[in-house]
């Protein structure tokens, strides 16, 4: 089973992964194979089943509203591949 190539390119756009022309074919056959595999679930009867998104049976623990000053700008920017002054910098964005 092949995964439709246009859909694959669209997925690449959505997930911001450039898909090389020369990998398109192998990738679409890989994804096709995975898709075929997960399609197995379609035959399972789940009409009255609630979905589980986390197995931990606990309600959300909340924290108190206390502000802590833990990180300096320098620390936050330490690993940034590019920065200007105390800002992260990216190629110019036109809104």
């Amino acid at each position, binding site marked *: 089973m092949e995964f439709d190539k246009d859909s694959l390119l669209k997925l690449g756009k959505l997930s911001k992964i450039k898909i090389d022309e020369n990998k398109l074919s192998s*990738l679409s056959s890989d*994804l096709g194979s995975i898709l075929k595999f997960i399609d197995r679930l379609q035959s399972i009867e789940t009409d009255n089943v609630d979905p*589980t998104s986390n*197995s931990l049976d606990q309600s959300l623990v909340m924290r108190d509203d206390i502000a802590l000053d833990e990180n300096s700008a320098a620390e936050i920017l330490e690993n940034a591949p590019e920065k200007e002054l105390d800002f992260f910098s990216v190629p110019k964005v036109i809104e």
Partner: protein
Amino acid sequence: MKAGLNLIEASELLANNETSSVELTKFYLDNINKGEELNCYNTVSSEEALKAAESSDKRRKEEKSKSRFDGIPIGIKDLFCTKNIKTTASSKILSSFVPTYESTASQNCINAGLISLGKLNCDEFAMGSTNKTSYFGSVINPWKSKNSEANLVPGGSSGGSAAAVAADLCIASLGTDTGGSIRQPASFTGTVGLKPTYGRVSRWGIVAFASSLDQAGPITKTVEDSAALFEIISGHDSKDSTSSIKQKENFYDNLNSSVKGMKIGVPKEFKSDNLSASTQKAWDDCKKLLQENGAELIDISLPHTMDALPTYYIIAPAEASSNLARYDGVKYGIRENGKNLIEMYEETRSIGFGDEVKRRILIGTYVLSSGYYDAYYIKAQKVRSLIKSDFNEAFKRVDAILTPSTPSTAFEIKNEPKDPVQTYLNDIFTVPVNLAGIPAISVPFANDENNLPIGLQLITNSFEEQKLLNIAKNVQDTINYAPNLDKWWIK
């Protein structure tokens, strides 16, 4: 120094002043050096380790040791963020990342005085069962098949963590398990691997793969070590909203290997044609053994066992596609230039991620995208509920479940199948446990006809790790499995 020391033995040597932390640390750094070919470590932090060892020895002299394990060197999967030490998740995209913070689990180790020798190789972002997806190359399994020189996979994703313990490149290690990533490599390397109940060990500071499935745990030489290291790393963490509020337990002190009167379930769905004859035999032998030791065997059914893997391959990639969105070349990691922001993102992520990671991001994006969300993602979450309720039903009748850890033993690195789905089948026995959030352990039981270790998996209900460790200890103590590993890498 005696080779193959475990945590308990090392702690006794230290307590009796028969060795020092510095001596132990040097010994293991030397082992790491000699074992370079195995490619277990992404980063060896010799200087930091020796400095920590000196402090530990000083504490011991002053009778201020942090715990009975103070001064023992371990290895840490390169998925745990470690302060001022490079943390890469074995990915190119993070290959330059040096965290300014320490994960809770590794900090717990530091708090107990354990010493980190370095960061262990793994599959990229923990996605894989062979360790071949690592940007830094495959880890090589220290085991070899009887009549072959071919290199074998150590399993994955915690391949470096398992291989390092097996090859004695550290005394014990930390791994993470999202779909079997501790148990499967433990099984392939003759080590003990524990996947705790979801929520037992804080995920704070561990590079996320699939948040609702990821759980850190120990890979060790013995069940006792597993109990001890698990005890060290577990406990509630207010920085992780999915951390259980349950009290920490004294798993090591409370070890009790009796299985008398225990009911052990044997699920019929795990008997598959894919199971190798020797694995089937080991499983049967273990059933017999437990029976002889006083346990009762009960045939059970986990009807959705075969649905677990496809469920996993929807949920895990879905979560991963979102968790890995933060690797965009802006805040940390590598950046590839592009003529605008979008191109910068696309180039960075295309070059920064390996093929398997990209496949999973794409699949994850697909199953969450509009028009497919209900058919895939919601469906998988519903099947997940069915899998969980299978286990709930089973645990009404049994104390624990016994299965093989993997369908087969370690295979050759060059033999990985072309179709990714074939590789996924490695995790067929381990994945249901992650979906249900329950604990499981892989213990080495025997070697197959090629002299490769076979692991068996024990599973209990949520938060019943004590029972799990007790049964595992019973098996371990009865069989007395001794890995007869030839250290071929030492020339």
